[in-house]
């Protein structure tokens, strides 16, 4: 399904980015938490974020993955309506574009047809 959405988003991508909201997060701040339903998707413009899975306190090993500039974050979770499998934390000061649920609504509807 994500592939279908991606091809549909492709032709509107520049417009969505333009209409999206510029956000900034400082080092150490959480963009979202594991288990949460996405409010929209993020596009990383500068800086690095890390994805942390599991919780030390539960005895699970933290699973770290880094993402840098240009990375689209949360796309598959948003369109599949599944909760985030990781917590996303800014590894450095970051700038992102946020594309909201309302802006993505038409694409979501189209993908479900």
């Amino acid at each position, binding site marked *: 399904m994500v592939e279908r959405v991606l091809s549909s988003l492709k032709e509107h991508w520049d417009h969505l980015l333009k209409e999206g*909201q*510029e*956000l*900034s*997060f*400082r080092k150490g*701040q*959480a963009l979202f*938490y594991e*288990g*949460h*339903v*996405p*409010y*929209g998707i993020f596009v990383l413009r500068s800086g690095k974020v890390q994805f942390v899975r599991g919780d030390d306190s539960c005895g699970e090993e933290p699973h770290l993955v880094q993402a840098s500039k240009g990375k689209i974050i949360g796309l598959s979770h948003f369109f599949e*309506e599944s*909760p985030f499998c990781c917590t996303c934390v800014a590894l450095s000061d970051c700038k992102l574009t*946020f594309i*909201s*649920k*309302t*802006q993505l*609504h038409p694409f979501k509807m189209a993908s479900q047809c």
Partner: protein
Amino acid sequence: MTKASKLECQTCNSRLLGVLCDLEKNAVEECDQHKTTNEYKKGQVIFYEGNQAYGLYCIFSGRVKLYQTGVDGRQQILRIAGPGDLLGYRALFSDESYHATAETLEASVICCVDKNAFFPVLAKNPKLALNIIKKLAKELREAEELATSIAQRSVRERMAELLMMLKETYGKPSKKGIVIDLHLSREELAEMIGITQETAIRLLSEFKKDGLIEVHEREITILNPKALLETARIEA
């Protein structure tokens, strides 16, 4: 899909406690379509001071503290929000960044309505706008009272005033008196009235010795509200 994500604005009792209570049916449906609900664990941050706002948060259950961090790293708690309260609307309306950080004091279920969806709802609902103005006016009064209190009242009076305020909002009758159903740490109590943690500990122990309160870990019971009111030097 989590249990929280199935919540609907149409049947939400918490919505009726806050400024969204007068929303018309179609506006409620509009909000519901564009909202996302999440369960936050204790201590998770909903938004950070200085960051840009992208939605309006509404508390379904749980409690959230809003605080600013000073240059020395000390927190000043501005208010505690509970079910039905909105978070982040000042930043949204003024198109400024958040003036405070919102962090859960306990496990909480919180809905976020996309700002792109909320503004059209607000534009079409004068009752909602009026409720928000009332809420803003109340918050402004409370902020002014806190500023006056910090400038003019002794730390003992401020702590007594805080306990009376917590009693009014979170008090529940118990066998011994009125128990405050909000378990704040000594540090958080201090941060609400601009004093140090050490001073908060000393004051609580003085109040305990004077028979005004009983303290068991984070649970505070008001034993003598009349005497506490006199200590606060505020009118009933």
